[in-house]
């Protein structure tokens, strides 16, 4: 036995990236109720709106947004979006006739997909309500009767618009206007599916609500639209999960999520994103937080080719709080451009952003964030911590934070570190009899432990399993 561990204990090889993505299967789309064909025109938007039987204002909003989308160039910063071919993408694919309330009524292919992902099992065990979106439409929805009795609304966005048109009209686009950015405009033009959640005053939804997003078709664009309204003193935890099959051509996922957190309310929004590595994931998420309200984003990005996502909060009421916990993992050919934006508009507001990223096999992670303290926001506090772990020499990590401070009665802090797994750390664990691979897994799991802790137990277990899975064979 060598007395000293070798200084360089490993040379990561090409075997870092696994080719077997466990959600890579797909079913054919012949049996679909409706397919829009490739490309996007005003005619398709008219047709889409007519099929959904929408009020006139929605069609007008869609058309205006379509104009904005066409007029705007791709952003010059962030990931490389030039390979997206807008004319080769199908914008609307309707797999089934309507949303059903029982898994028995879901078509066989669709049901099998969600069975394999484990959605029905999770629903029975620990969720208050479930939505399952397959390509463009929500195909299944449920909500436990306890919450129905309390007046909680959990519908697909399309049902929400049909049943509560006034509520939707009041808040739709109020946090993210249709001209916010190119992809928010595209989403507004062709949105379909997504969730509509309303939690009445002082109702605490104690179990999470979950929506499961699945892309099945090839060269497709999924544009779900989510609106969550948490009324005064209420609380809710919403979870979304995403997977897609293994195709060569690229698909686009561009969601818009708007959240309204009223006085003293609390909302936690958790994303576990594990798209296949051909998906462009360009998402706009923002919350408007009133007095004493609290918004928590927990954002886990493992999959996709390029992700550009910056969940943000506008702290508009006195004493409002915001928190973002973000984790990104980038492997070969992936670019995770994630971060968060904190806008402090009122006094005594506080926010925390914790971002952890892991790059390996030539992957690239970027933290991009902005903290804005308005002249009114005296006695506000903000802390940003970004830690990056680079697992080999081919990978890259960037940090692009901006702090803009227009008031002096504040405390603003930013910290970032970039490092690798230390040889001394590995040595320590290996002298205690652990293999190198297990030591590495343990260090990586420890690196993200405080974020994983914030997930419901079932997801935390799954997350650790996924990380182990990604780390497998990372020793050459």
């Amino acid at each position, binding site marked *: 036995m060598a007395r000293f561990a070798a200084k360089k204990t490993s040379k990561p090889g090409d075997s870092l990236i696994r080719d077997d993505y466990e959600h890579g299967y797909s079913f054919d789309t012949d049996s679909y109720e409706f397919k829009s064909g490739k490309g996007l025109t005003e005619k398709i938007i008219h047709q889409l709106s007519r099929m959904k039987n929408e009020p006139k204002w929605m069609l007008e909003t869609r058309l205006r947004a379509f104009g904005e989308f066409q007029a705007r160039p791709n952003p010059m910063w962030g990931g490389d979006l030039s390979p997206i071919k807008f004319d080769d993408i199908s914008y609307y694919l309707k797999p089934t006739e309507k949303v059903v309330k029982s898994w028995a009524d879901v078509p066989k292919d669709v049901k099998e997909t969600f069975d394999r992902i484990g959605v029905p099992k999770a629903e029975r065990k620990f969720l208050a309500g479930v939505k399952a979106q397959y390509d463009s439409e929500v195909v299944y929805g449920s909500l436990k009767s306890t919450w129905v009795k309390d007046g909680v609304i959990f519908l697909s966005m399309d049902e929400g618009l049909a049943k509560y048109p006034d509520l939707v009209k009041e808040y739709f686009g109020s946090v993210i206007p249709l001209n916010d950015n190119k992809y928010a405009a595209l989403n507004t033009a062709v949105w379909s599916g997504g969730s509509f959640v309303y939690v009445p005053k002082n109702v605490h939804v104690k179990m999470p609500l979950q929506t499961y997003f699945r892309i099945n078709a090839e060269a497709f664009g999924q544009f779900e639209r989510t609106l969550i309204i948490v009324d005064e003193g209420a609380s809710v935890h919403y979870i979304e999960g995403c997977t897609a099959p293994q195709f060569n051509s690229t698909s686009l996922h561009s969601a818009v999520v708007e959240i309204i957190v009223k006085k003293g309310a609390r909302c936690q929004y958790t994303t576990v994103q594990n798209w296949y590595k051909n998906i462009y994931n360009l998402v706009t998420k923002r919350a408007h937080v009133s007095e004493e309200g609290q918004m928590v984003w927990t954002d886990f990005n493992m999959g996709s080719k390029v992700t550009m996502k910056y969940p943000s909060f506008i702290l508009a009421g006195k004493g409002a709080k915001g928190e973002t916990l973000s984790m990104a993992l980038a492997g070969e050919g992936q670019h995770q451009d994630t971060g968060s934006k904190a806008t402090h508009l009122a006094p005594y507001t506080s926010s925390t952003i914790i971002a952890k990223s892991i790059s390996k096999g030539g992957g690239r992670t970027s933290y991009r964030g902005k903290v804005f303290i308005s002249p009114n926001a005296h006695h506000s506090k903000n802390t940003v911590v970004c830690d990056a772990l680079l697992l080999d020499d081919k990978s890259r990590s960037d940090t692009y934070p901006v702090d803009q401070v227009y008031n002096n009665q504040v405390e*603003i802090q*930013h910290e970032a570190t970039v490092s690798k797994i230390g040889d001394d750390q590995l040595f320590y664990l290996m002298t205690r009899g652990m293999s190198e691979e297990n030591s590495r897994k343990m260090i990586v799991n420890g690196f993200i432990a405080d974020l994983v802790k914030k997930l419901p137990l079932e997801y935390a277990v799954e997350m650790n399993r996924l990380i182990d899975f990604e780390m497998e064979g990372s020793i050459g």
Partner: protein
Amino acid sequence: MITYTIKKNQSKKIELTKPGQYTVELVGEGAEALVSGVFQTKDKETIATEILIHHKSPHTSAKTTLKGVARDQSYLRFKGKIIIDEHCGDTRSFLTERVLLLSPQAKAEAVPDLEIKTSDVSCSHAASVSNIPEEHIFYLQARGLDRRKAEEIIVEGFLTVSN
């Protein structure tokens, strides 16, 4: 734009006295840079300092500290960036940006960027923007200093860079 180039086994202390754009390139193995800059603004001044620390060679190190105090309605901007190129192992680089805002109308912007393309590095940055904590002033006042003097001493201490 002023560029400093630091060659093999060279160690250099750089003190920035004027706002503007600066680049520090570490081009040879063993190059070391200690960069510091202290800025004060008052009235309606706006000043901006941009600095790029570019590690182009392995075994290099840099420590960069920017500090500023903004009074009255002035606006102070710091933009710092560390780039570590590919194959520049055993690199250490630290960037600190600290701003003290002494009046309610004073404004600040701090941007500390990192672009790291090598894994064998130790790199970090820190930024902070705040006013003088009331406890600090209280501490000195309790020892018999008046408010103005207390502030003066705290600012003086704040602006001292120990490189």
